[in-house]
């Protein structure tokens, strides 16, 4: 996989809706608390992300009709020709995200990652390689971590999906999140949500991980900044913390 370095061939129809959001991400500080508080913000004031989104939309105005197509309402869905066959226009898709039922109108080609980021404003999972190689889009589907960029949203209906936004309990961050802050385990932060999802999955099944276990759990996550030593340190500290206070285990 590491050999296939030529990608980024995304065409406008796929990425137009996300292009504004991607700009937003690279300018904002994607800390864990940030993504949580943002999702709670109401319409009373514009967040920095909202403001940048408006700017992003204006900058890509020429491509907006395509975005409109992607965001089509469910009433636009064409009637199925053969029983069991749907699309290519948008169809209702029901996702169970962080305990909440969400029904969206999506074309069959929309990935889970694009649905989360562009439709549900859950921008914790990041779109980096978009080819299942970097792990920044890692989410948990039905108890198993997957690359949401290589998962069609329509394929994962009505099964529990947990994203990084679903880890904290109220204002209490997950011990892995706390440990990342305490151990300064991030630089640019783009890979962080993916690493945290991978490490949470490890600690859920292994309360006494070794350094090798931690490294193995992170096989599918790439950190461009090279903060691996801090990530490993944070993981081992989180394991210790979870052993000390098992009640905190989410």
């Amino acid at each position, binding site marked *: 996989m590491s*050999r296939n370095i030529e990608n980024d*061939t995304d065409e406008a129809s796929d990425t137009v809706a996300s292009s504004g959001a991607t700009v937003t991400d690279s300018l904002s500080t994607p800390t864990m608390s940030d993504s949580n508080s943002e999702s709670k913000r109401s319409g009373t004031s514009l967040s920095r992300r909202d403001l940048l989104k408006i700017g992003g939309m204006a900058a890509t105005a020429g491509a907006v009709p395509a975005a409109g197509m992607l965001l089509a309402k469910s009433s636009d869905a064409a009637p199925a020709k*053969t029983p069991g066959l749907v699309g290519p226009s948008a169809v209702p898709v029901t996702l169970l995200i962080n305990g909440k039922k969400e029904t969206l109108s999506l074309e069959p080609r929309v*990935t889970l990652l694009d649905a989360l980021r562009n439709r549900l404003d859950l921008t914790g999972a990041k779109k980096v390689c978009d080819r299942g190689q970097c792990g920044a889009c890692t989410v948990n589907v039905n108890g*198993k*971590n997957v690359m949401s960029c290589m998962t*069609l949203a329509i*394929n994962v209906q009505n099964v529990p999906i947990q994203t990084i936004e679903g880890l904290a309990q109220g204002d209490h961050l997950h011990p892995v999140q706390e440990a990342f802050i305490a151990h300064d385990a991030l630089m640019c932060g783009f890979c962080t949500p993916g690493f945290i999802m991978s490490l949470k999955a490890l600690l859920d099944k292994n309360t006494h991980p070794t350094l090798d276990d931690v490294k193995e759990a992170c096989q599918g996550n790439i950190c461009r900044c090279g903060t691996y030593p801090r990530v490993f340190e944070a993981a081992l500290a989180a394991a210790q913390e979870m052993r000390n206070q098992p009640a905190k285990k989410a």
Partner: protein
Amino acid sequence: MKNFEYASARDTRQAVSFLGTDWNAARIMGGGTDLLDEMKERLVEPDRIVHLPMAALDYIKSTPRAIVIGATTTIATLETHPVIKQHLPGLAQAATSLATPQIRNMGTIGGNLCQRPRCWYYRNAEYPCLKKGGSTCYAKDGANKYNAILGGGPSYIVHPSDIAPMALALNASVRIAGPKGERLVPLDSFFTLPNKNITRENILEPNEIVTEIIVPTLPVGSRSVYLKVKERDTQDFALASAGVAVTLKNGVVQVARIALGGVAPIPWRAPEAEAIIKGHKLTPQLAQTAAEAALKNAKPLNDNAYKVPLAITTLRRALLAAMA
């Protein structure tokens, strides 16, 4: 990627009914980790995707005569399933050796056997290579560090699967469902060389689906080993790999099946090596002789002569690991 019609099939019969006779018309999707990649790169642009849900064929059955693995069983399940770990350790090793935890949670054994080549010319839409119906194999005289040293021509891809060489060494067969019913095909005749079929790597028709992998029960005293050498420690395909299944009696090799990965357009059986070790106790010297015999017909390209000694060493070590 291009938009498509979508069907989620209840079972394989319904899935087959949604497929057609044109590869571009409809494609079957399991975990989707390979197909979506090809679709995003616009290497394939099917009008219809037929999804076979993971639950459809997610089982491992142990019978007196065989271990039967449903095609949508994930690679992660193969890694950890007690039946596989106990009876087919080589297959569990092959599963662990590939991709990443997330991809192993998604990818299926059926999809792994049927995945498309990773040659960078094939994966780049800008190159109309032989595998895509073009007239040139750009790897032949191009950057061919990762390409074939055995069985190449006119295309020089290597088969990317790790499950395939191990399953071939284990003498596995696949059950294939199609419009006319089912057929059972030994892996020995499932994969096809480019000189037989340039645009595909196996005998599957566009409206056929691999539904089961059947591994015959090995006699008492059997062992299986999969050894893989890759450039990165994780998330990489094999530069060279070896799947070995042997049956021993008092330390003497009774039956041996050997297949190499990462060196040929198909998982590559090594009958020369099998013949050399059969009837003998395996010493380091005999393992070396057998491994050299397996590679004696190798024809390296400009950048991949290193694969010959690498594959020899990989096979020698795999053989000795099987005896240990």
